[in-house]
């Protein structure tokens, strides 16, 4: 049995007290414990930012990569050893800004990993600049006169990029987030969990209060069908007085690994390399 305590490290997170990141870390540990994943079979890969420090504080294998590059690293870890559970984490700047190219291609590629985005709509670790998901008009150190561009909509983007599991959680509702992460990890394919994560230090607009007032759960609507992409797309556009959280969309399709006969017998990492016979390659050159 993998327990929550086992996943907890001696070192305490250095996040601001009350930061939404605490809720995400708790939910992630609970989900891993609930799924009873052996901790040495889990790799948490992070980018850079406040969220990037997360692997330090969960007792699994961890890879703290570069800004925006968690997804290439995470996908390759999975392809190298598909028996592992690979979970990538990062912020909105990391995933939807500098790393957006990798994000889109990872979704269409459908490698079986989970991607949790700590979406606080601001750059926190660099002390408060506008991010790709900051709202139009948002004032920050880098946009003192108000942000001109409209934000990236990660849910619409994910649907358009053929992401096979698209969800949004809220760091202020840990039990609900545990459920979403659990489903995301169980999903065969690339699973996105965009998490509304208030930054209590720099984001004066998108606060816990703001979200408590606005969020509602998609699953509470009995008529909502998360296999209907058109409906999912409609809901993804909803951002105002009401903000949906929960599972927007899910489809079963082959993972990238499923399509690789190279992996059918054993993970790459378990294949012997001591004595590769290349005689026929030489013959072909003659």
């Amino acid at each position, binding site marked *: 049995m993998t327990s929550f305590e086992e996943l907890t490290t001696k*070192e305490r997170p250095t996040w601001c007290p009350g930061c939404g990141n605490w809720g995400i870390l708790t939910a992630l540990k609970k989900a891993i414990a609930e799924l009873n994943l*052996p*901790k*040495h*079979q889990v*790799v948490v*890969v992070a980018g*850079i930012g406040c969220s990037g*420090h997360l*692997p*330090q504080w969960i*007792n*699994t*294998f*961890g*890879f*703290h*990569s*570069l800004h925006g*590059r968690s*997804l*290439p*690293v*995470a*996908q*390759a*870890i999975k*392809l*190298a*050893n598909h*028996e*592992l559970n690979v979970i990538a984490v990062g912020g909105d700047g990391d995933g939807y800004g500098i790393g957006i*190219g*990798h994000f*889109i*291609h990872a979704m269409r590629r459908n490698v079986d990993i989970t991607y949790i985005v700590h979406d606080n709509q601001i750059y926190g670790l660099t002390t408060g600049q506008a991010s790709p998901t900051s709202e139009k008009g948002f004032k920050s150190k880098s946009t003192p006169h108000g942000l001109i561009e409209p934000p990236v909509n990660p849910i619409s983007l994910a649907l358009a990029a053929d992401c096979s599991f698209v969800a949004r959680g809220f760091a202020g509702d840990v039990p609900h987030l545990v459920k979403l992460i659990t489903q995301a990890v169980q999903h065969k394919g690339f699973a996105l969990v965009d998490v509304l994560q208030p930054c209590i230090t720099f984001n004066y607009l998108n606060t816990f209060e703001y979200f408590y007032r606005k969020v509602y759960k998609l699953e509470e609507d009995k008529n909502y069908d998360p296999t209907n992409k058109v409906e999912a797309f409609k809901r993804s556009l909803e951002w105002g007085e009401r903000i949906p959280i929960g599972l927007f969309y899910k489809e079963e399709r082959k993972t990238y690994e499923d399509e*690789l*006969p*190279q*992996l059918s*017998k054993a993970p*790459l*990492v378990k*294949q012997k*390399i*001591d004595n*590769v016979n*290349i005689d026929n*390659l*030489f013959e072909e*050159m*003659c």
Partner: protein
Amino acid sequence: MSEFSWKIGGEAGYGIMTTGFIFGKTFVKAGFFAFDTNEYPSLIRGGHNTYTVRVSQEPIFSHVKKIDVLVALTDIAIEKNATEVKKDGFIIYDVGHVKFQKEIKGVNLIPVPLTQIALEKGKQNIMRNNVALGASFALIDVDPSILYNMIKESFGGKKGQDVADANVNAAKAGYEYVKENFSNIKKIQIKSNGNKKRMYINGNEAIAIGSIKAGCKFYSAYPMTPASSIMHYLASKEFDYNIVVKQTEDEIAAINMAIGANFAGVRAMTATSGGGFALMSEALGLAALTETPLVVVLAQRPGPSTGMPTHTEQGDLRFVMHASNGEFPRVVIAPGDASECFYETFNAFNIAEKYQLPVIIITDKFLAESHTTTEKFFLKSLKIDRGSLLTEEYINKIKDYKRYENTISGISPRSLPSQENLIFKAATDEHDEYGNINEEADNRVIHVDKRFRKIKVLETEIDGAKVYGDADADVTIIGWGSTKGPIFEAMKILSKKGIKVNYLQILYIMPFPKSKAKIVLDKANKKILVENNKTAQLGSIIKEEIGIDVDYKILKYDGRPFLPEDIATKIEEVLTYDKL
């Protein structure tokens, strides 16, 4: 005559590359030595492509200045390449298609209606290539059946017997046409010394095969000339050798994927050219700080920026040595021929794993794409060494596992995800022995020093320089990478003229082979540096590492490889000037 050179020129899309390769390989199969080089602009249709093949009874290492046969499929080919034809050489041209008519003094013109014969025999323009091959063989005193067999092999297989037969018939028609219409020509005389089986292989293929032998299981890359054919080769073998070959969205993804795969315990590699390497630079440091093994190939082309994408240069040496922010140890290997491409790629994987650092193999377009004739590589001495990778037996023996343990050698025990009890964090931040972020001053110094200590150990294990030629020479040539072939040929020319010459090849740029280079250069009479760049980058590295200035620099940065004759002439000039 113990050798000859043949060149075909035409538009991109005419099949020049395939034709040139078939010509060279035909002779290799018949026991000759061949070397080829190509030149093409960065476009898919039109322009002017050439493919030069030199054939010899004896081992050869590069192309040479003059050609014996030019096959001109277009007027541009005549305009640009006719002056390269030797006295009494031949120009086969596509009469009817090429407008050219006048005489060229001292050259035998062989007008052949290549396209017309192709249309008659094969109903396709593209078969003019085979007509041209047949016509070329009619000028050489060898049995043309070696060509017909090679064509059969190249166009048979998947394409079927009919296609193969049509191509062979086109070649036969070309051969017969020249035989009938030019019966009084003096054929090129060449005989092979036996018919020993040898490989006809280029640098990229040798790197790809070297990586397969080294157990590379994951290859991620973004297309970029002249590195792309490594990906093409590995992709064609991915099912045979269970290699995941991933074309990524960009070079950043390519290198980060290679790092991820290596972290998970699989040998992985990426390759690119200068521009792509620029994008990879940050991640090079990621591999270094997380001490993740990594092999990166950089096949150079002339920069900066897009530069001349399909040409050759050695302008990125300083770049690979210093790319990425911060200070960290790395290894830079510069193979000089296909055989070194193979062995050093194999070695690169061992070094990367043993020393847990990035290893860069630097080549260039000339080496990457030129085929050379070589014996099959010797495999007995090749042993996979995974260094201090922890095997399953350690899992329960180690208490308090420290991934970045501060050892005497600087090399720490490396575990892999899935190994119980050996959990660690690979951190892009400075970290302590466990991998936890640590920004304390003492810790910082300990870990910087630990990483650099690894290079001290590596230095004792490698022989990073090679010396060829007379110990007691008038001239010592110094070079790195693909200049090796033209330098070897220049040495032949000079020694025929009674000039004693030797050659110091720097194979490992980092760590630099200080003591060997110093011993050779201290004794050298005249030190002449040969580099395919503007700023004599190796020259400045030599000065920096061992404080020795070269006496003369032969530099070339026109996007073309060195010609042996040009090196030899320059060296003679230097010697003459010195005597005045």
